[in-house]
């Protein structure tokens, strides 16, 4: 630790690594064991919704819940605050 670094406080990079890993590992674990088509379904949904809204890649959540006797496919799409109006130029295509 050099003298200057004593006064410069950034979050240690190891902590950043740990936080990033915690999130991605949890996300990948939750997708594990689910049917293989879920990621594809999510990607295709994203493509369709993007024809109307300008949304981020992580705005679409697809989740399959197994309850007794029936499965529930849960979709949630977070729309952008400003871009709620459909983008008509792209829709016309």
């Amino acid at each position, binding site marked *: *630790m*050099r*003298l200057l670094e*004593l006064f410069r406080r950034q979050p*240690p*990079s*190891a*902590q950043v*690594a*740990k936080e*990033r*890993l*915690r999130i*991605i*590992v949890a996300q*990948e*674990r939750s997708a*594990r*064991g689910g049917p293989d088509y879920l990621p594809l379904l999510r990607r295709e949904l994203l493509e369709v919704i993007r024809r109307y809204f300008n949304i981020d890649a992580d705005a679409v959540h697809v989740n399959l819940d197994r309850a007794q006797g029936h499965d529930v496919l849960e979709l949630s799409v977070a729309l952008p605050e400003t871009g709620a109006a459909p983008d008509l130029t792209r829709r016309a295509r």
Partner: protein
Amino acid sequence: MTEIMVVTSGKGGVGKTTTSASIACGLARRGKRVAVIDFDIGLRNLDLIMGCERRVVYDFVNVIHGECTLRQALIRDKRLENLYVLAASQTRDKDALTAEGVQRVLDELAADGFDYVICDSPAGIEKGAHLAMYFADRAIVVVNPEVSSVRDSDRILGLLASKTMRAEKGNGGVHEHLLLTRYSPRRVATGEMMSVGDVKEILGLDVVGVIPESNDVLTASNAGTPIILREDSIVSHAYEDAVARLLGESVPLRYVEEPRRGFFARLFGT
């Protein structure tokens, strides 16, 4: 009873072969009868790390194809009499390994009275890696304290929990251990490297060993001596501790703390 142990990681270059060689030697040195098998078909390397590359006549695929007996293909270690190496083949044929063939070799090793079979997995999640883990009772997951290695290991943990015989048959699953390599207590102390605790927390595994970063690993591999046999190196001690833990002994972790430095040493960054 033969125990099958896979050394795996997902990511390449993290120390699977170094670990396989040292764990095999460590177990053999404690009187166990051990066979260590290279599953990296097409990219044989365990023979170099074990220092027996010039004695390879027959390999794993030859045995599976019935071109020689298992006894002919097993290379007896020159340093430890109850240690044997089965080399990978250099064939480019990806389908050279079959589940039935691998099972036949493992069954024969068990019938021959081996205590441990160490399966040195190739990197990746292809066939070689799949077959290396499929019959395992235990898994040593080798991880560097670095983001891509940790993430890939978690992927491997998912496969161990689903694509192994123990998982499919539902008899308790594969017993998994974490082995951290290239650990630098100094960089952990300065916050540049994730600690043992961090990695353990993310992956949720028990730690069977922490191997410090050291130049000794390269010099040992240059010479074809498994690093555990270099008694003057702290890496050797760390692997010896890991072997003891695998055998159920309780040994405290060593070489995970940076020795405390004085005020002036820290101030001027020596």
